[in-house]
């Protein structure tokens, strides 16, 4: 299979397919638009499979590398490659895109071509972020990916979408600009190179390291999002259509976390270690504080949004303890969160499509009329609460194991998620699903149709498979994580 440039395919197949979908134009061609979108999404997923099957788990170096001059005057390159840290996310992203296309099949009946095109193009851009090894290329993809997301929220979103969009804009603007400054500084410092890997080997003084660290932090912390720059996320989720929420939670949040591993830790390792306690503190606040906030929510989407922040707190926690168990746990948590939060938002979407409410109080006794749905929802709720044999457990378990190695009390605080996560998830589940039929809306609910059953079943299989046998996922990460840890163990001062 050599010779095939799978990373380029993973980026451009969805983008080109998206453009073709867009070309079908008005809604009278909706069936055609859907068909093209589905074929594109399938093709987009297929071209990423060789990234896994052809992956060499023994090396920490970049694989599937493609490198061409782009703007030679500034030595900007079209430079792609993945390692064990980024490769799983390319596949996850392409997979989630397929799910989103299927999930929006009948639900979206307005501007169908544009809707599908937005998701497909975003999918390509996101793959670009995960596989870019050139700073400018990364930045272009990173910023460009926001445009489809804005459009998705802005056009297919809820009534308060303008506020959500502005809030999101304010947050990301500051961060992105600082990151751009850092990238340009690194370009100058490295003697005119945008090669991210070459930045990994730059000697940088502590003062500069600190500045770069905070510049990147400003951008990544907003994306993750970390406490206290998280408040855009619940609003964005609430206003976004189901598909938008799924991509936002499953993929977009991972960009910030991924950025820490690709930029912050390897480029400024001394600053990363110096400010680790700050990040750990913010992460623990995210886990506990946000856990309590989630408990107080009356809107299902907000609740799951807060739960996402809390789970992502586990990810940043795992990264900044600098041991392999915790980092791999955090990576597993990221992938699992992609499945689980995606599935949770899809479940809420299933209810929203029928009742047009996200308020917990508008439900009750859903199991009486939607038993199949209740079974799936329970599985995903349990995964969200980190039950063993679901993917949600693996990451949390490994991060806690890593945390005990690092400091018992950090583990102690982190492990409260076991109680809090179960409390807010299952309390919501109880109020929505169990009980007597609460009202006429619930009484007239129809259970899952074949299409809904299909995408929830596929996600259920992923969640269970990864919980029962996570080895295939953890295996591909070892070499890269070990490489990273060896790299940051050496001071760059």
């Amino acid at each position, binding site marked *: 299979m050599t010779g095939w440039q799978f990373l380029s395919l993973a980026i451009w197949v969805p983008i080109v397919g998206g453009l073709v979908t867009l070309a079908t134009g008005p809604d009278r061609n909706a069936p055609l638009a859907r068909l093209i979108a589905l074929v594109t999404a399938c093709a987009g997923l297929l071209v990423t499979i060789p990234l896994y099957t052809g992956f060499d788990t023994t090396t920490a170096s970049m694989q599937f590398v493609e490198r061409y001059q782009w703007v030679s005057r500034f030595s900007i390159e079209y430079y792609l490659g993945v390692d064990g840290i980024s490769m799983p996310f390319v596949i996850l992203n392409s997979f989630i895109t397929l799910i989103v296309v299927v999930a929006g099949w009948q639900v979206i009946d307005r501007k169908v071509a544009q809707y599908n095109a937005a998701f497909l193009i975003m999918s390509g851009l996101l793959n670009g972020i995960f596989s870019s090894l050139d700073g400018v290329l990364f930045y272009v993809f990173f910023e460009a990916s926001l445009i489809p997301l804005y459009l998705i929220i802005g056009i297919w979103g809820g009534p308060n979408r303008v506020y959500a969009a*502005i*809030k999101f804009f*304010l*947050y990301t603007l500051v961060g992105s600009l600082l990151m751009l400054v850092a990238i340009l500084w690194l370009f100058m410092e490295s003697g005119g190179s945008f090669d991210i890997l070459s930045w990994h080997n730059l000697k940088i003084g502590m003062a500069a390291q600190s500045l770069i660290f905070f510049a990147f932090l400003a951008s990544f912390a907003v994306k993750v999002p970390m406490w*206290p720059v998280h*408040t*855009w996320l619940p609003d964005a989720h609430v206003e976004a259509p189901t598909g938008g929420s799924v991509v936002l939670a499953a993929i977009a949040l991972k960009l910030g976390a991924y950025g820490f591993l690709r930029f912050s830790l390897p480029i400024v390792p001394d600053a990363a270690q110096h400010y680790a306690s700050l990040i750990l503190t913010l992460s623990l606040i995210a886990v506990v*504080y946000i856990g*309590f*906030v*989630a*408990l*107080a*929510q009356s809107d299902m989407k907000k609740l799951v949004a807060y739960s996402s922040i809390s789970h992502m707190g586990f990810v940043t926690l795992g990264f900044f303890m600098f*041991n*392999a*168990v915790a980092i*791999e*746990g955090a990576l597993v948590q990221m992938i699992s969160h992609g499945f689980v939060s995606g599935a949770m938002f899809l479940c809420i979407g299933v209810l929203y499509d029928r009742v047009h409410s996200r308020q917990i109080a508008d439900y009750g*006794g859903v*199991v*009486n009329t939607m038993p199949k749905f209740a079974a799936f929802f329970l599985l995903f709720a*349990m995964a969200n609460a980190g*039950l*063993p*044999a679901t993917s949600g*457990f*693996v990451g949390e*378990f*490994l991060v*806690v*194991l*890593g*945390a*005990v*190695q690092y400091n*018992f*009390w950090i*583990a*102690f605080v982190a*492990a*409260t998620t*076991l*109680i809090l996560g*179960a*409390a807010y998830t*299952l*309390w919501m589940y*109880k109020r929505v*699903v*169990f*009980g*007597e039929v609460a009202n006429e809306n619930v009484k007239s609910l129809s259970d899952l149709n074949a299409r809904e059953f299909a995408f929830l079943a596929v996600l259920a299989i992923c969640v269970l498979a990864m919980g029962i*046998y*996570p*080895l295939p996922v*953890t*295996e591909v990460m*070892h070499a890269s*994580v070990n490489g990273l840890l060896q790299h940051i163990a050496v001071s760059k001062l």
Partner: protein
Amino acid sequence: MSEMEKLYLIVPLAPLVGAIFAGLFGKLIGRTASHVVTILGVAVAFVASVVVFQDVQAGNSYNGSIYTWATAGDLRLELGFLIDKLTVMMMLVVTFVSLMVHIYTIGYMHADPGYQRFFSYISLFTFSMLMLVMSNNFVQLFFGWEAVGLVSYLLIGFWYTKSTAIYANLKAFLVNRVGDFGFLLGIGLIAAHTGSLDYATVFSKLPELSVKTISLFGDSAWPLLTVVCICLFVGAMGKSAQVPLHVWLPDSMEGPTPISALIHAATMVTAGIFMVTRMSPLFEVSETARAFVLVIGATTALFMGFLGIIQNDIKRVVAYSTLSQLGYMTVALGVSAYSAAVFHLMTHAFFKALLFLAAGSVIIGMHHEQDIRRMGGLWKRMPITWITSLIGSLALIGFPFMAGFFSKDSIIEAVAASHTLGAKYAYACVLIGVFVTAFYSFRMYFLVFHGRERFHAAHAEAHDDHGHGAHGGEVPHESPWVVWLPLVLLAVPSVVIGYLAIGPMLFGDWFGASIVVHEGNNALAHLEAHFTSAFGMAIHGFMTLPFALAMAGVATAAYFYLVKPEIPARIATAFGPVYRLLENKYYFDRFNEIVFAAGSRALGKVFWKAGDQAVIDGLLVNGTAKIIGGFAQIIRYFQTGHLYQYAFTIIIGVVVLLAFWGSRG
């Protein structure tokens, strides 16, 4: 894979297959096929367990992995089986009781619309419990641990429209999670300090672990294993319902009776006891941890027993009795009498499952009436249930020759001989507990089976809240054979198992290397010196203090509830404050409700409204937006669109700059 390895796999997988069939295709294959396939699965597991038992009896054991679950850093996490005497005993108990409960369920749940779902759940439970007991590592142990918790959650909330049931199942899950929180930290400490989660590897590193310390508060050095064992035991406190994490078990009675017998009496709740026994090499190192275990266990044994006295719901009486008996097992763990603990675990599994299923039979016979004050004189209406209940009750109070006698007496003797910190307190608790146990058991027994028939009067008013129309208005009657047959089959071991097993299990070193007891801690050694035969022990049992206390309990119950039924009410009035304390279950529920449940919700609201909305959004985000907006307002004054103003501004600017550079030069 050898023949035996295949067999080990069949034991948990057969019930899993049954569960999947009945769960996913229950509607398709129908009720009969659902119960056939699940019962077949459990029966296969039971037979396979018997074969494994014979193999283990022949001196074989096994410790091997099935597959590598995950690797992370230097950690290699494998799932696998450890098959030794301790495991095989648990396998037999779990599969046998589960089989009985499966059969019983055909009768008990026959009119329930969730029939297939119920069979699927109890088979899934059997699978989970088997994975737990057969594990050779902490990952799988934790998997089984949480999986049984999940099934327990599903089954307590089986009648999901009942508001008390869905309150109880959430409570059970969350309280268990508090225990799991400690358990997970314990596992984490083990992984951090041994680099492995495989039992054998961990135990092999005991010499270095025993001398390790960790600093928790400032520079104070804590013995590592003390911290590990206490953390692990917190997990056991959740699952085995020890004070103060016991609060979920009485409420779990909201679930159907068969699962109360299987999960909340015979098997799942004993997982904590099993786990500590499995970890005996670790617990033996830490006297502090054992003292902690002992005091918690003794407190549970006595104070939960007191609560059994004032309950009027037939299932709740049995539930508090379970709490108290779990306390006895925990006490045994605390005095290093691990074999006595699992011995009591086994006898208790039989007689308590029997008592619960008998209670269920009474409930069916009484047309879903559970208040013992509305029963009475049932002995002639339900003869099989009556006799088997009597057997169960005698076993529970430790009547000589019955199963419970041997196990409970051994525990009491072991406590008497122990020097662990807190042993004196524990001895007092378990002794008084004997009287209390006998009193509440026979209070229930007399109220249900003897005395005046009180159901005629009660029926008219009580009947309409229980939608069990089929039997309306009839007198109580014996249950169908699928219900009474399991009672009879459980009554047999409730009588004989203690007599048969005490010799090898307690004094014959039957457990061998499965259980480690250090020489100095061996509280059973004293008992062993006096033990000649099971027969001798039982005969001697008639002359001991516990026997006298038990008989006093029975006599008091008979006097209070058969001879002078007006006395209890008078006592309740005379000791008002005490009665109210018991009636409110020592206010544990109220406290949790106010402090933890309402407190967390309030805290969440504060964080959300004050932290997220007021400070972060209000002040920082929208504040920034306002500042930028305000700045833009000012800028607007300058962007007038008049060319002469721009020109004027540029000139002023140039002048200022020139002046600036000029002053520097």
